[in-house]
């Protein structure tokens, strides 16, 4: 490792000043502004194009920095500067999709979002007197479906996940084959494609119930397959943070293992546990494919998760766009409305998670 670094560089004529052979301090900023201006000038001559301007400026900037640095400084420094430029560019590039996605959803969804949209279900009504079919766009059925399906999934996976985590941290020895297998399986389960979970729930329920087994509950099963590993992983990390001094102090007082876990370990870790669960919910609430497979989709209001197809916001966003009704524009608008509602839900869940983490943050742990 050291040989490559200490390789002597070609001797250069030494100037008097300490700063000789170096570019000025804010050279990269000047280069960027300069290339922006130059490219803008070129584009003025042949028609302006914002994207092309930015892309070309970035390239010109990188080349200019490289050339100047290798003339004034040396090749190593030039490489360093160019790489720095590339890394910064990669980072800026990542912000474009984030801003653009959120911006698009808000701009397009805000038009569709109003109280009627939230408080009524979609569907077409046929009026026998006038022979007119009126189609309404709404999200009530999807909101109810989302809450029910996700709620049942959370009810099923939180106890299982939490108990698994407690087993892994408190009871199992790390070297034991059982705990190693469970850990490996949990790791691998985080990588199950969500649509496969949906297929699993669908096959399970067609075997039990028979064909036409679409129900909200089946979708909940699919979601909990996805959710359990997330809950296990985050709870496990949180339980591991509880310092072993606390446990040992409790044992030294003659407290049983069960009481130690329920009275000492869980209360200490509660903030992290709740945060992890909230984030797991936020993650599965946006799943589309498994629900689409397991619960199908519908435009009608269905409050019973154990019978008949149910829709969720994510599924509504997908289905309204892909399988639109007679009024395509209205369907697309309702897709964006559902998408915006969904994003709002996810953001709210994330905020709750952060606030819970703040409020319950254990004192004196660190």
């Amino acid at each position: 490792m050291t040989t490559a670094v200490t390789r002597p560089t070609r001797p250069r004529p030494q100037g008097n000043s300490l700063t000789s052979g170096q570019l000025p301090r804010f050279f990269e900023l000047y280069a960027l502004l300069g290339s922006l201006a130059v490219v803008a000038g070129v584009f003025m001559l042949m028609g302006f194009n914002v994207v092309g301007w930015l892309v070309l400026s970035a390239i010109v900037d990188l080349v200019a920095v490289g050339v100047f640095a290798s003339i004034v400084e040396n090749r190593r420094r030039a490489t360093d500067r160019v790489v720095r430029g590339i890394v910064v560019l990669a980072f800026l590039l990542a912000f474009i999709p984030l801003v653009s996605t959120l911006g698009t959803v808000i701009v397009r969804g805000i038009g569709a979002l109003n109280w009627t949209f939230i408080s009524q279900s979609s569907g077409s009504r046929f009026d026998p007197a006038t022979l007119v079919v009126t189609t309404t766009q709404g999200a009530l059925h999807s909101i109810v479906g989302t809450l029910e399906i996700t709620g049942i999934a959370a009810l099923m996976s939180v106890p299982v996940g939490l108990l698994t985590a407690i087993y892994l941290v408190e009871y199992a020895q790390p070297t034991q084959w059982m705990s190693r297998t469970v850990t490996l399986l949990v790791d691998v389960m985080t990588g199950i494609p969500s649509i496969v979970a949906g297929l699993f729930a669908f096959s399970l329920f067609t075997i039990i119930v028979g064909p036409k087994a679409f129900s909200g509950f089946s979708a909940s099963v699919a979601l909990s397959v996805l959710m359990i590993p997330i809950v296990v992983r985050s709870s496990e990390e949180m339980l591991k943070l509880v310092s072993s001094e606390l446990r040992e102090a409790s044992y030294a007082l003659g407290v049983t293992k069960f009481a130690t876990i329920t009275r000492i370990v869980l209360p200490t870790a509660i903030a992290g546990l709740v945060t992890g669960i909230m984030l797991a919910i936020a993650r599965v609430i946006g799943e589309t494919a498994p629900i689409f497979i397991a619960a199908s989709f519908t435009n009608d209001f269905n409050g019973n998760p154990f019978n008949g197809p149910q829709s969720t916001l994510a599924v509504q966003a997908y289905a309204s766009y892909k399988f639109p009704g007679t009024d395509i524009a209205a369907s697309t608008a309702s897709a964006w409305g559902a998408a915006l509602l969904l994003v709002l839900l996810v953001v709210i869940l994330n905020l709750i998670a952060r606030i819970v983490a703040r409020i319950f943050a254990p004192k004196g742990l660190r």
Partner: protein
Amino acid sequence: MVILAAVALFLIVKAMPAIVANWQTPDLAGGTTAGHSTFWGYVGPLIWGTVWISAIALVIGAPIAVGIALFISHYSPRRLAGVLGYLVDLLAAVPSVVFGLWGIFVIRPFLLPLEQWLNTHLNWIPLFSGPPTSTGSTVLAGAVVLAVMILPIISSISREIFLQTPRLHEEAALALGATKWETIRLAVFPYARSGVVSAILLGLGRALGETMAIALIISPSPKVWLTILTDTQNSQTIAANLALNFPESNPLQREALIGTGLMLFVISLAVNFAARGILTRTGRGTSKRKLRREGVVLVPGASPIVVSETALSATEPGSPADHAAREALS
């Protein structure tokens, strides 16, 4: 955990009739499964499409993701690092269907001029050949959206691993006169290589199973195609094929589709095992035990709060990793 076994078992049970069935029967002769003589003839092109599109997404996304991770861990001002990491992780919180809609309304028109230009001028490369697109529902558009979706996974795991580089290695390199890039190349990359590789594999696992973006954007024709810029010669992924055809299939076709799902399950299981295996097997300090002890949460989309708090309090106080984490978060 019985669930994993149960998933595999039920998929096999449900898919078996279609795999062994005679594909000339009327049930399978129409609809989505028309024109295929065996199950393998049906699933083969879909597997190809899945791997192909994910690979393109990876080629686009992985370098950018590693760049982001490097920026946050080594280039950005220390005070900003935590916030920036949180913002990148926000990408993981956006539901996939939202990305799909965004891909349709923003990425498709955005890429259209580029695609047409490539198609006109670089037609001789097989990748860019074929009839030119007019709507933008191309493999390239789908792969770009997929690349955006796998950015947060790859970058958050790589970031954690870059941050764990022993501080002394970096300082030694700097003290020998290495520039920042040389330090990263000599001290950080060798240390983090296996972690980054497994992060990329995990990203691949995510890309393989991604459904909605592909189902919404690409207009498919399930054959083996190399072209990425056309409307009519697009490969199709297993997941998207499932989502598109599942609602309107008869029972036997559904079983065939479940069979394709089983293939997807096997592929992504293999990729995930490989990723975990690399993480566990490397002896260069990034073994999984150590990772876990130092609080790297490998759950995709996990909270940066969780990650950061864990990183802070799980490392021994005063250790290099602890130092780096504190600096990064303060």
